[in-house]
């Protein structure tokens, strides 16, 4: 081998290695229950999807209100690999706390454990990981309870009898399976209600438009009620029921797309189940700060339900205020209910 090239290569390796070690040396790794020696530098990671959109604002507000460095990043797809790429890019830049959406309930735990070993706390937002987990907290919608409540509202409006259609999001999303089970449990508690069909993988417009309207059109007379727990499916179904000028089928969607809100206002659908992504992100970052100040999570506390309710016609003008009030109430009790102060 060319001696000159070898020496250059060796020198380059020495410089890089020195940089890596020097970057890590001297900084004490944070451990739970201790106060961190470096300023907070946080990242909240979501997905490029309308549900996560309020999180960007929450991060900006948190950074502004607390004079903390905080950024919002999002993956293109609901993919843990993409999320890992973002985390791998941020940790060398000194980011020392992550409010993460769990790209995958099992795989995310590998990432969380690695971050914990590096002294970086993680709070999960908008979804849960499989237990046990090294995440300190999880702030998310109780998707099972939300789905069950939506199903109960539909069945109540159906008069406790008839055929019910369950429209699901991506089967690869663990939340989907939780919601499916919850809805089927509610239906099983009402003997006069039958699950007519389950339509799945509808959280993309192409799939939703090819499955939902044709199904409804073909079996219209048999359908008495329907529910979806997927954003795109809620939009497509609301659009279809609006076109149809529906005044019979009882339908509950999810989230607050304008198409869904318009359909509620016009009386074509019953309502939609809300969630609270803003609160999830804001409180997630707040929790990270507390942890790095030496606070610890109270034993037995892990999951925080960020809240949901049925947004129907009566709440069309006040739903944003309700969500804000719920978030503020959560913020009031957040520290006292979930954290122990630092030991002296």
């Amino acid at each position, binding site marked *: 081998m060319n001696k000159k090239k070898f020496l250059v290569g060796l020198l380059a390796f020495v410089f890089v290695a020195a940089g890596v070690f020097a970057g890590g040396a001297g900084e004490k790794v944070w451990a739970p229950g201790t106060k961190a020696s470096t300023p907070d530098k946080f990242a909240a990671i979501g*997905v*490029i*999807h*309308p549900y*996560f*959109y309020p999180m*960007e604002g929450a991060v900006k507000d948190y950074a502004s209100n607390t004079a903390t460095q905080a950024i919002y990043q*999002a993956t*293109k797809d609901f993919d843990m690999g993409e999320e890992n790429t973002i985390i791998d890019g941020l940790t060398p830049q000194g980011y020392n706390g992550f409010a993460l959406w769990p790209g995958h309930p099992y795989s995310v735990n590998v990432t969380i454990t690695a971050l914990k070993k590096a002294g970086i706390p993680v709070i999960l937002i908008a979804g849960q990981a499989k237990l046990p987990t090294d995440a300190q907290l999880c702030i998310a919608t109780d998707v099972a309870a939300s789905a069950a409540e939506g199903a109960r509202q539909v069945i109540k409006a159906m008069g406790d009898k008839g055929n019910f259609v369950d429209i*699901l999001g991506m*089967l690869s999303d663990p939340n989907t399976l939780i919601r499916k089970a919850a809805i089927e449990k509610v239906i099983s508690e009402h003997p006069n209600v039958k699950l007519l*069909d*389950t*339509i*799945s*993988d509808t959280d*993309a*417009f*192409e*799939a939703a*438009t*090819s*499955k939902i*309207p*044709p*199904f*409804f*059109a*073909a*079996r*219209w007379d*048999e359908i008495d009620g329907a529910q979806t727990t997927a954003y*795109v499916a809620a*939009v*497509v179904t609301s*659009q279809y029921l609006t*076109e149809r000028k529906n005044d019979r089928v009882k339908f509950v969607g999810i989230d607050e*797309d*304008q*198409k869904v809100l318009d359909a509620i206002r016009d009386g074509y659908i019953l309502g939609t189940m809300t969630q609270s992504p803003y609160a999830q992100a804001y409180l997630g970052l707040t929790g990270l700060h507390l942890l790095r100040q030496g606070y610890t999570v109270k034993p037995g506390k892990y999951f925080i339900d960020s809240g949901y309710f049925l947004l129907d016609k009566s709440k069309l003008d006040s739903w944003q205020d309700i969500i804000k009030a719920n978030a503020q109430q959560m913020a009031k009790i957040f520290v006292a209910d979930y954290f122990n102060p630092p030991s002296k």
Partner: protein
Amino acid sequence: MVGEHSAVAHEQSGLRKAVDRTLKGLMLQSSLGVGGVTVIFAVVLALFTQGFMTSGNVFNMSRTFSLWIIVGFSQMMVLTVGQMNLSAGAIGGLAAVTVGGMFQNLGSPDWLVILAGLGVGAACGAFNGLFIVLTGIDAFIVTLASTSIFLGINYGWTHGMPFSTVPAAFQFMGAGSVLNTIPIMFFIMVFVALVLYFVFRHTVFGRRVLAVGGNQEAAVLSGINAKWMIFSVHTLSGLLAGLGGVLFVSRLGAAHPSIGSDWLLLSFAVPVIGGTSLKGGDTSILGVVFGGVLMTLITTGLVLLNVDPFLEQLFLGVLLLLAVIVDRARTVYVRGRAFE
């Protein structure tokens, strides 16, 4: 008497041969193979599902396959020169948010918005074409990269949030119908199909495109400007993807940034099932139409047949394979008979 019998027998033999030749000619048409499978599948669904033949279901399926066929045409344009356009979905999405943004932020009139959506599509396609002909880099790589560029512009602008202010009049394209059964989108699709048929069948441009796809070197030696042909088909591909985006916004009544995210497989499956060669030089407009209808029937049919949602992808793959195997078997059989 013997002579008369001979004359009649000769005439009957000639008639039989003519019918046989016509049938063979028809069977050699790849589009009719797919068409046959499509008809068979439609009959099966009509017999074994409830509500398949209701006007509402026919209307909704027609809207879906009309859109998918246009997306298929977008990819078909590029396949005819033996290339690929991986960015068709990203172009459709960018055109969609352009439409939404112009309505919501500028309050622009419908005609200007439609032109802008098509223009954005054509511009994106032209970008692809120009890069390919100037650098000589494979279309796969260029369009792979441009997918990220177009998506980046989309997401950078919208941050993933949809534009929801779409005028009711604009939504007529996506929601309107004739006789409550035939969607307006169907007529738009038929118009595009007829134009493309005319271009490939009766214009010098179309013939030159197929020549470049069939054998680029020979086409160049014949005096055809291959680079211009490649640039043109990519531009047209973008234009058609843009049209798909515009129609999707009209269909949904909102411009979602994720429009086009599922177009990649669709844009290839529709023309290829319909008989368009991946190597270039050959295409069938009717085949693309049947390919789109078949894909819609399979996707919708699996829902109507109440297939277990966890097994849906398995059935989709099996049915697609069956469709192409049947068509392949037809081709092999007929070509074998042709040499007898």
